């Protein structure tokens, strides 16, 4: 496997950034959900819980 | 004819609810004195009536134009004197008034008369506004309102910063405007003086109207 170093860096950063961003979204979501009063948490688009 | 009609009007300054549900009716020719502590929402009320602010909720009609949709139309026939005087420091008094008259599509000939009516001494006419004292600046700002000959005068503490002769000029201005059929809303801390002028006294606190006394002069 040639250029493995480059590949690992390229793929690694992409997947790493993706996972980091996904977790940040989930955490931001949880933190905000805790502070918003219950009645307001219906989403405008989908209504599934 | 109803000049100002507000129903549960809420207006925000940034995220602060400066007006938290105001109901107000003012008819043509009235001179309404708006009183209340600082931060009560007086200035916001005047700016709302001038069509400069968006209604967060509630309804309103100024000079027959809907406050939600026709704000540009409201602004055409309103004169507002706010805390800032909206003058260009690098231009002279005459150039400033000239500019605001033309911008308001009003005949420039009225500028000279307006300056005299506000007692702006002729030696100052061609002086840069940046060199004027605060009191003189307010007279020039008032002159800019006079030049527009608005139907609805909104004066936010017009007496502030003026010497006694200046205050007399403002009073005469308000009387003349009302006599000419215009409607005046003015906020002031000069309770004594403006009482004789006003046909009605409205007190504002916490962004709502807490008192409305129509004492016939």
């Amino acid at each position, binding site marked *: 496997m040639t250029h493995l170093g480059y590949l690992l860096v*390229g793929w690694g950063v992409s997947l790493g950034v993706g996972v980091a961003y996904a977790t940040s979204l989930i955490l931001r*979501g949880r933190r905000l959900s805790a502070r918003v009063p219950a009645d307001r*948490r219906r*989403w405008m688009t989908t209504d599934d819980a | 004819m109803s000049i100002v009609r507000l129903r549960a009007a809420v207006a925000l300054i940034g995220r602060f609810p400066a007006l938290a549900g105001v109901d107000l009716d003012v008819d043509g020719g009235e001179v309404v004195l708006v009183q209340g502590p600082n931060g009560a929402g007086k200035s916001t009320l005047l700016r709302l009536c001038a069509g400069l602010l968006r209604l967060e909720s509630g309804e309103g009609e100024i000079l027959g134009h809907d406050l939600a949709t026709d704000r540009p139309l409201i602004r055409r026939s309103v004169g507002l004197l706010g805390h800032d005087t909206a003058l260009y420091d690098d231009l002279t008094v005459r150039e400033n008034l000239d500019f605001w008259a033309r911008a308001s599509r009003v005949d420039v000939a009225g500028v000279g008369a307006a300056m005299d009516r506000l007692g702006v001494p002729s030696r100052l006419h061609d002086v840069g506004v940046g060199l004027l004292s605060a009191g003189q600046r307010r007279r020039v700002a008032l002159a800019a309102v006079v030049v527009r000959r608005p139907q609805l005068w909104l004066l936010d503490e017009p007496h502030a910063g003026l010497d006694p002769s200046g205050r007399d000029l403002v009073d005469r201005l308000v009387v003349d405007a009302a006599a000419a059929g215009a409607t005046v809303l003015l906020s002031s801390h000069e309770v004594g003086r403006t009482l004789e002028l006003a046909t009605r006294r409205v007190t504002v*606190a916490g962004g709502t109207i807490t008192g409305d006394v129509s004492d016939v002069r």
Partner: protein
Amino acid sequence: MTAPAPAPSHTGSRTTRLLGIAVVVGVIALVLLGFFAAPEDDEQQDAVRMIFVHVPSALFTYIAFVTTAIGSVMWLLRRSVWWDTVAGAAAEIGVLFCGLTLFTGSVWGRPTWNTYWDWGDVRLVTTLILLLMMIGYLSVRSLGGDERATATRAAVIGVLAAVILPIVNRSVEWWENNTLHQKSSLTDGNLEDMTLFTIVVGLVVWGLFFAWSLIHRFRITWLERELRVSDLDLALRERRAEGHTEDGDS
């Protein structure tokens, strides 16, 4: 539907859970396909495997910014808060993808064109200018005071970027009218089936991730707005109370 479940304590939902699982499965498949199933390239050898990350990221960068542009126009025309939220969410994700595109592009460029960056390259320079414009977009959004004014400012930038970008693209194209960039990988058609299949898998994975992130980011902004609204209710009540207590002495 049974009685509505109690309000969720997170921004997730059945759809996002499904999407999330699909993304994870997709990523695993992509890695396996990308590193082992797809053939190497005769010139670039294995460096070509970067394509499975670079191309999807580039495509969804532009999809994200088109979403932002549409959302911006809908806000300016119809003051639709829903579209404004979508525009903001898509821009944040778009900046992320744009950064990844440029990063993977230069990491791939190093072994193949032995340079990290090439100013003559139309797509590279256009993508960089897009990234800078969108960083401006996000900075304006984060500085805003009055909510509606911020939405309008951001929307104007969203539209401006969408209009200026093609001109940037044209001007860079003329500047050099050559490009180290290989022809668009999808359209030139000389790819073996497996490489093409893996790229498609990459596109699917990126698309699912984009959808997943957009939904979550949308709801986060939605919660932030709800928080401000409930704060506003509180502020209104306090404001009115302030009015009454003062009644006594004014």
